[in-house]
């Protein structure tokens, strides 16, 4: 339950932060959530990873649907992804997830080092 709450909270907080702050605010969001909700570091990492993977890939997917895939196929050729919008959406989710997961890991370690 804590895990799912962490995932959802990370996604929501990162989304809100992204409205006003630079992209790396996702790390702050994941870090804070891991600090507030105590979990084992491995779970915190996964919560950050899933939270941002879900947020970024869902946003990218939604944008891509509204855009009818015009830009994603072009960017997926500029980046070495063989023109695949699906790969680009997954890559987007993964990059966001990686940063957030590591930030959440730090948050978790900080909390547990206090205890």
């Amino acid at each position, binding site marked *: 339950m804590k895990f799912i709450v962490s995932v959802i909270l990370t996604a929501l907080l990162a989304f809100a932060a992204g409205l006003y702050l630079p992209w790396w605010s996702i790390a702050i969001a994941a870090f804070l959530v891991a600090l507030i909700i105590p979990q084992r570091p491995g779970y915190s990492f996964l919560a950050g990873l899933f939270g941002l993977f879900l947020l970024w890939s869902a946003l990218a997917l939604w*944008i891509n649907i*509204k855009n009818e895939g*015009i830009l994603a196929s*072009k960017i997926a050729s*500029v980046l070495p992804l063989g023109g695949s919008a699906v790969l680009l959406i997954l890559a987007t989710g993964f990059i966001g997830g990686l*940063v957030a997961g*590591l930030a959440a890991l730090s948050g978790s*370690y900080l909390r547990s080092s206090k205890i």
Partner: protein
Amino acid sequence: MRIVPFIVSTVITVVLIFVFNKKIGPVPPIGKFLSPQHGFWQNAEPTDASFDADLKFPQLKGKVEVYFDDRLVPHVFAENDEDVYFVQGYLHAKFRLWQMEFQTFAAAGMVSHITGAGPEDRILKYDRSMRRLGMVYAAERSLQELEKDPIAKTNQDAYTAGVNAWIDNLKESQLPLEYKLLDYKPEHWTNLKTALFAKYMSYDLAGSVKDLEYTNAKNVFSITDFEKLFPVAADSLKPIAINSPENPYPTKPAYDLTLPLGSDSIYFNYLKDTITNILPKPDKDNGSNNWAVSGTKTASHSPILCNDPHLGLNLPSLWYEMQLTTPNFNAYGVTFPGAPNVVIGFNDSIAFGFTNAGRDVKDYYEIKFRDESMNEYWFDNAWVKSTRRLEKIEIRGKPILIDTVTYTLFGPVMYDQNFPAAEGSKKYYAVKWKAHDPSNELMIFYKLNRAKNYDDYAEAIKYLSCPGQNPVFACKNGDIAIWQQGDFPAKWRRQGDFIMPGFDSTYMWKGIIPQQENPHMKNPTRGYVSSANQLSVDSTYPYYTGNDFPVYRGYTINHRLDAMNNITIDDMKALQTDNYNTKAEFAKDILLRTDESKLSADEKKYFDIYKSWNFRNDSNEKGATVFTIWWKELEKAVWSDEINKPGLPMPWPNEATLVESLHKDSAYHFVDNINTPAKETLEDDLLAALKKSTDTLKIVEANGNLAWAKYKATKVQHLLKVPALSRLHLPIGGGSGIINAAKEDHGPSWRMIVQLSNPTEAYGVYPGGQSGNAGSKYYDDFVDQWANGKYYQLWFMHNGDRMDKKIKWAMKFERGE
């Protein structure tokens, strides 16, 4: 102890963020770039996006309403001139900001600032060449001139404020895609940037001279051979302006144009200069077609004006289509993102268009400096002091480079020890270029947008100093006209075709040809005026106007217009997109001298394809591919033994030279290959060329590319040459020397036809789209229409049309914070 893992994971996180926030080589900052709330996803515009908006700006004086039609063409209605230019600047920035700024960086030699020095420092070398050509110097001088004119200054200020109103309110997520790819941010717009853009047009249209190559060639060939290879005029020339009683040429030059004393030995014969450091040039086919037919030749009895400027085919397009309306004027057409007013278009009374004059207004002079300090140079038997200009070149990822450029009374010293003309060369060459002189070019568009008749047009075009153009004109009152307009130096024959001595004032330009003596035609009895970058006059014109002009487009247009009557708009569409290859027609008797009995089966096959060809470069014609490859091989067989010298840049003869030489000279000695003991004949060359062509053609055919459009592979390339953002392999015919001048990456950048009837009926298309955003469906939505030779009807909106169904979106601007 969790403090150690905390520190480790925090450090990794911070490093990762840092790495993902930074451009590494060609890879954009991956975190910033992929973030759906900040990066490129934000440029993926919903296909049903609305462009409605209500905006307030303190700079506005009144209300401005902008109505977008279904092609995203804005029709701007303002209460005064300043507001219309403010909104024009705002819209240019909103839809085309990246290209606007990038073009000015290219003009100013500042590309390294964005991209770094490039492979083998190529970009840095380009930047240095633009600085050494004096581009920024020229733009600064033009800006001073512009700012002296209160009207130009006020409107330019309003335009610049409009651009900045967009930039100042730009969020990171709204940055155009290219800024995100290359990871940089736009600067503030300035009036100087508009001046730089205007100078870039001068560079593009009046910068492609071959004086340095001719100088090399002059040192290889005798005068007789040089004149044979590089004649001043083609026999098949149909000049723009005919010397006729209704529009006579001046009878004698306004200046004494006798050759300088001793020029035979000092200028025409000195075998001293070798220039290998020849810089990349704008495309030599930067040209265009335009014509206007009078009501006497049209079905509607109203004049029709047509124009298609041939320029590099790029995305985002050079052009942005719009309509500008205030109580003072109402103009529709294409605009340059980066400058105010409509550039090619029409208003309630007249239509106007341009082709390039292609006159040589950029000459090189050899300077003799007293010593390597370059402080003084020898001129008219005295030492004259030079001046300096420091060019600071910012290079991404490297320290600033300061290039010192020395200025003489001719202009900047382009080549010196720091930028040698050839390896080890100790020569100094200064460049004298008309674009260096102060001028207020952009005012021509302000005046043309408001012109009501011939007199207004004739007055407006006087603002055009450089690049020289052929502005064509048609008016609802029935008048048609064309001028070759610009400040053109009065030259003696071959003056400036080679590097000139810079120590003797007799080699300087004698002066500028009086404007009234520029070639022109008004209401000729033949019922049309036209231009296609050909030589503007015949040999009875008393000034030297240069060499190496394209011939065949002009020939074809005039030939066709002569024969046409009861012309309709559809006839003009057909002519503007015509693929007839006049050169191929003229070359046929030469190619048919091939001895068929000596051909192999493969050679015979291609020869037969050629023989049954209809001279049309339509997209599916195979004969056009055979002809093009074969003719190119024939030119090489005839000339490359004489012209190609390893390491020495040499000019290649004009498109008409081989056909005409072989027709008039039965003993054309260049057909012999000087590198073999045998004496080759034309027939030998034809066979050798066809053999070589057959090897190429077999590969072309094996790849399925024998059809002309497949072989030619016309593309509209993104300015950064990123294939994914470009449109490749377009099914379009035409080509070099053909009215439909669509080459590989160059061609008709805007096709326009305007019938000056009541109401005006106008059509146009350009290979691009109104949005500069590759993530918008309006990025390239005109490309297929353009490739298919189809047009859009242009909607000339009037005040009463504000409820019209053609309006899709409205943007309302008013004064306020």
